[in-house]
């Protein structure tokens, strides 16, 4: 009798109201008796109190946190920069921040494989402002991080060349850049020939040379400095891979654009540790700064696969780019070589002082290479890059490729610019990804912008509203002319 009543209850109440029950994956933790757990925590605390301060900090940083204030998925330049600025604005004891990084050696990370350029020659004011702040940040690095912080900045400038078609756009861009604080000069054919006698300028109409605050630096050093700065202020770096989110029905949340009572929010982040353990972290805010993997991480949060607002996917995907390191047998361009970007998109710069150069070219959409590994295609250099280099710089007719490497761009297939800001559906999810090749110079500005948005409620210094996820919803792409 009891059982039939139970089955009737089950059929009537439970099955019809299925959505009242969690449909998330069960947590992979064994259930500990609360009393036992209390005693365990207390004994741990007493033992910890007896140890000296440094050891205590080290032990605490090794304990996997069950809940944090802010969790950042991705611990490279952008992720570490966000963590640093959040901690900088709130102090050591202000926020509890965890940064989840899949690969502690940063082997395939876009940051360390990048060429490390810094330029203000963009066509969008937001990009220019972000680069200017990047330059300011790099200049005041020693003040923030101590006297031994150095990114080996080489202030040689950028030279963007334009053919007849693009000359007007170049002039407009240069005007906008000087208005906003960049220093550059537009040179005609004769000016270019005079300054850079090693260049062939027959088909070049104009070139814009950056005179100040442009050049290149060591991105590995920058990553290391910001990461150490964030860790010294108390950020916890966890080596693990984000494998899922747990969701929670929040009937009480009313969102503009979502049907009443159907809101499903993010509750916890599930992380898989290197030894196979799966644990979850409860967070107040989550920031996706995972670079090329951001598209996959966003899918874990049902972005792109859910209903309504969630059906807009995050269009960030991996694209492989090659960088070739070659040296010139003849008298190549000497000390006065800026990072030269041809109007075809081919770029090269001096690397060190021994006649060594590095350069590359972004493939056209038809030739996009496979992204499953970082193998380099040498044929691509011989067929596509070398002819253009040899045409632009006659001395490059005799060059020998010494080495090469491949790296991933976090390519934003929508408009090749960063997606920065909160997600329209989830009130506790932020995005800072999709920079398509110019992320490293914008990482300090993005870190500061996200920190301001979380802590102060809106962008305070650089207004990046136009770079938000909302532009994907209303389909207003922010195109940038100078993408390399």
């Amino acid at each position, binding site marked *: 009798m009891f059982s039939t009543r139970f089955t009737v209850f089950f059929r009537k109440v439970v099955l019809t109201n299925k959505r009242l029950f969690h449909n998330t994956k069960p947590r992979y933790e064994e259930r500990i008796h609360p009393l036992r757990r209390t005693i365990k925590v207390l004994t741990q605390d007493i033992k910890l109190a007896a140890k000296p301060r440094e050891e205590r900090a080290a032990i605490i940083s090794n304990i996997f946190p069950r809940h944090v204030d802010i969790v950042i998925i991705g611990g490279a330049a952008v992720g570490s920069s966000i963590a640093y600025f959040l901690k900088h604005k709130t102090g050591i004891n202000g926020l509890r921040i965890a940064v989840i990084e899949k690969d502690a050696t940063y082997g395939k990370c876009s940051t360390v494989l990048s060429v490390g350029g810094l330029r203000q020659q963009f066509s969008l004011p937001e990009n220019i402002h972000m680069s200017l702040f990047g330059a300011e940040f790099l200049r005041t690095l020693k003040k923030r991080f101590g006297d031994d912080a150095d990114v080996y900045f080489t202030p040689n400038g950028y030279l963007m060349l334009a053919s007849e078609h693009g000359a007007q756009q170049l002039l407009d861009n240069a005007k906008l850049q000087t208005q906003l604080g960049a220093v550059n000069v537009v040179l005609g054919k004769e000016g270019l020939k005079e300054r850079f006698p090693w260049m062939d300028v027959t088909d070049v109409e104009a070139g814009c040379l950056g005179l100040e605050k442009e050049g290149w630096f060591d991105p590995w050093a920058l990553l290391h400095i910001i990461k150490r700065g964030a860790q010294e202020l108390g950020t916890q770096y966890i080596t693990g891979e984000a494998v899922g989110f747990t969701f929670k029905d929040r009937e009480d949340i009313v969102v503009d654009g979502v049907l009443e009572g159907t809101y499903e929010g993010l509750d916890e982040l599930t992380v898989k540790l290197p030894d196979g353990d799966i644990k979850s972290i409860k967070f107040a805010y989550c920031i996706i700064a995972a670079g090329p993997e951001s598209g996959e991480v966003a899918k874990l949060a049902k972005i792109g696969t859910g209903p309504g607002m969630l059906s807009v996917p995050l269009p960030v995907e991996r694209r492989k780019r090659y960088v070739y390191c070659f040296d010139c047998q003849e008298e190549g361009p000497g000390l006065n070589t800026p990072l030269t970007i041809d109007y075809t998109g081919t770029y090269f710069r001096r690397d060190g002082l021994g006649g060594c150069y590095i350069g590359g070219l972004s493939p056209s959409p038809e030739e996009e290479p496979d992204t499953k590994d970082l193998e380099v295609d040498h044929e691509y250099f011989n067929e596509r890059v070398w002819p253009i280099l040899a045409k632009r710089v006659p001395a490059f007719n005799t060059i020998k490729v010494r080495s090469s490497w491949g790296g991933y761009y976090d390519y934003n297939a929508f408009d090749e610019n960063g997606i920065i800001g909160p997600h329209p559906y989830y009130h506790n999810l932020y995005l800072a990804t999709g920079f398509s090749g110019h992320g490293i110079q914008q990482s300090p500005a993005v870190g500061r912008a996200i920190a301001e948005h979380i802590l102060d409620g809106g962008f305070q210094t650089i207004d990046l509203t136009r770079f938000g996820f909302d532009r994907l*919803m*209303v389909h207003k792409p922010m195109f940038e002319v100078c993408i390399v």
Partner: protein
Amino acid sequence: MLHSDKLFRTVTPRSLQKTFQICFCSTKVNDKPENAENSKLAKEMPKDLTKETDIRTKVELTKMITKKDLQWRTPWHEKEGQHYSFLRSMYSEESNTSMMKFLQTPINLSPAAIKKWWAKKQEFKDIWMQQYIPERNETLGNELAAAHFVVHRDGAVKFFGEDRWIKKNEYNQYSLPKHYQADKVLQAIDCSRMNLYYEGLVNLRNLHQLEWFSINGCQHMDDWCMDRISNIFSESLLYLDVRDCPKITERGIGALYKMKKLKILYVDDILCSSAFELTCLMLQDINPDLDIRIQ
């Protein structure tokens, strides 16, 4: 949090009844762009455009996008029939994270911490005092403004046509004109052992005929300053002295390729590292007239 306030709302189950009266935005995700003009433009564009003109149209469209375009949902307080309650006047929009951080940092009264705090304050004050003052340049013109700036801070200047250096004496007096004089053009600036910062170099812009410049012994000069110096004095400088600046590396010296007329460069020690030596040699390759000296 402050951001979620505008677009998200949490209601208790009791007030769930009232929420049905709130009209929610029924904007579908796959809506056409709101701006009808843009969509018309897209339809009328011919297919056989070259890549460059395509980019120009894209750029024009991008320029027309404003913040308002991206606001596809109205915040709750702006909807019909909504208003902020009276209690909202009790708190402010701006959050005060800096005040909270100040209250939360533990007070450190050890002598080392106080010394560090004082040094930081002094540095901030020094940088603040060296910033660009537009009124000074408007009244005096670029040359005299730069001269006043340098001499006030224990430097020395020399004008064309005069053969004495102007420096302040022990009573902090110096004789420089207080109004614009067109014939006073700076020939040489000596900033030796001055407390000059990157922000202070802004005051030395637009000196079109400066030939002699020295930052011997300025402790705060680094590669970024060399970048700036090589740009602002690129046309006319003949002599540059950068001895005794510990923060300048070979990359800063390499930036001097922008100075077309440089004849004499004084550096500390060419042989301190091979990279430094190589940079100097390469600089001489580009600029054959250049003479790099140690003493």
